């Protein structure tokens, strides 16, 4: 079975600084991978490459068997909006739009907007009662759930999450963790960057990064 995502000897340099080196990874549909490592180990750089927001300096990045390096900007854009759902540590919500409109925004840039679908996505993350609230009126946990609802609205193949519980307290962390578990049960492929060993523990595999190099993959 073709992996949904495959990295072959990926390298990333910023000038003379090597951020990533010799990264090899295969991710199959429905897998939950946690990428862990100390600050500056290259986790976010790797996530940027996986989400096609950055290009590697060397190596091959295959998405569903297609080499991302051979794609132009427009094609990468299509893949990003069709196949990838992004969850950020800082949430990155539009402050002047309501929760519902923030979700609809992702629909807008994907295809067309549908309020009912957006409401359903918010219900799924437990925000049915917060549809008309703006991000500033939501708690941190609610903002992260809104961010997850936005990432799910276009039914992406892969969810890429960068420290999704990094800004949350223990209670909200638990809520988010439960959400990820449910998404795995639904068959979503999840790649999650985290410092949190508790969150990492739920993954099928843990990839440890150190100084831009991948240490052996640990099966959780």
């Amino acid at each position: 079975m073709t992996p949904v995502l495959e990295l072959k000897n990926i390298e990333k340099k910023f000038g003379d600084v090597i951020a990533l080196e010799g990264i090899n990874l295969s991710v199959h549909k429905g897998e939950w991978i946690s990428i862990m490592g100390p600050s500056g180990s290259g986790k976010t750089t790797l996530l940027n490459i996986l989400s096609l927001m950055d290009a590697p300096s060397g190596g091959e990045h295959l998405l569903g068997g297609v080499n991302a390096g051979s794609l132009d900007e427009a094609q990468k854009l299509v893949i990003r909006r069709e196949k990838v759902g992004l969850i950020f540590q800082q949430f990155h919500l539009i402050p002047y739009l309501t929760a519902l409109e923030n979700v609809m925004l992702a629909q807008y840039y994907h295809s067309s907007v549908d309020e009912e679908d957006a409401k359903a996505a918010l219900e799924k993350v437990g925000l049915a009662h917060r549809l008309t609230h703006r991000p500033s009126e939501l708690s941190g946990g609610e903002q992260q759930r809104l961010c997850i609802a936005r990432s799910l609205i276009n039914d992406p193949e892969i969810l890429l999450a960068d420290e999704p519980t990094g800004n949350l307290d223990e209670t909200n962390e638990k809520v988010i963790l439960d959400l990820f578990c449910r998404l795995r049960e639904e068959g979503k492929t999840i790649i999650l960057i985290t410092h949190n060993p508790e969150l990492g523990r739920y993954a099928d595999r843990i990839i440890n990064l150190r100084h831009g190099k991948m240490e052996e993959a640990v099966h959780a």
Partner: protein
Amino acid sequence: MDANKQPSSRSAFLLRSVFKSLRFSYDRTLIIFISIMLGACVTGAFVNVYLDINSKMSKELKAYGANVLFTPKSIDKSLFFDQSDYEKSLHVIPKGSLLGASPYLFGTVRLSLGDAVMAGVDFAGMKVAKPFLEVVQGAYINVDFDERNALVGVDLAKKMELKVGSSINLRNEQSGFSTTIRIKGIVSSGDKEDGLLFVSLPLAQKVLGKAGQIHLVEAVILGDFNQISAISAQLSNVGSFSAKPLARISLSEGLILDKIKFLMALVAFTVLLITSMCVNTTLSSIIFSRTKEIALLRALGASKRNVATLFGTETFLMTLFASLIGAFLGYFLSQFFGTVIFGSGIDFRFLSIPIATILSLLFASIAAYFPIKRSLNVPVATILRGE
């Protein structure tokens, strides 16, 4: 995704987002809005004044006096032409364009202390054709057919020892016509008029025995040099005289008008340029503060065109409303200019609305182009890193 979606809902969502975004950053939006509105207001006012200035300035510049002179077609053949020809010709002048005109018939008459040059005139017309003629004593004659009174130039009055109320006997030796007139006023222009005796034209014709004959006509016609030249050419086709614009006056009017119009265009351009700089700076600041939003949109799959459309729509709507309001306010500003400068209102010209709106939109678009272009190249990954 459900394929059964309303295509219009996308544009509705875009508009909803745009209005919310404008409302969210209302303080900076207001700066842009006011800048554009003021720019459009000044431009609109100037366009109104520009379109009305010909008639306004023509009236102002009529203080210089006559700008068209009617003389016999061929001076070699006759120094006179028919008064009736002149009167018939007046219909070719567009309605409202003839401010005033006076025919003249000159001749020498003997007074008690010597000879004097008498001018038969239309007193009401002469008041317009020679607005600089000042009454230094007595009063002006306002009735054209007044054959009992006369005006005398200040130099002639001194020479002939004439005073207001003095009587003069005028006599035609050939026909035996004789009449006595009274000096009603002493006038001065500081020029040749100071040596003339002014009587009504019919009286002069009787005294000089030149019934229905005149030497020349001075007229004041509204319009720029080209318009007056065209009217003069038409007048010349009517009868035994030729009408010529007094280039010194008419051309001066044209030159002054051109310079004023150029100055107004320059001021409007400068105001729009300042507006553009304000729009550019404020929009740059708005876009800079929304860098994360732009990066997010790009991460969500928005193309550069999508981002440009979003900011372009915001700028366009804001500029359109501000320009339209400013252009309408421009009419009121033009009224202020009209009252202060010309002492009267300026006519509303509908053309000022589209002109001011389009110019403001054009300048604002140029001002918005570079900030929007810069926004398309934000480093998405770096900005969203969240550090």
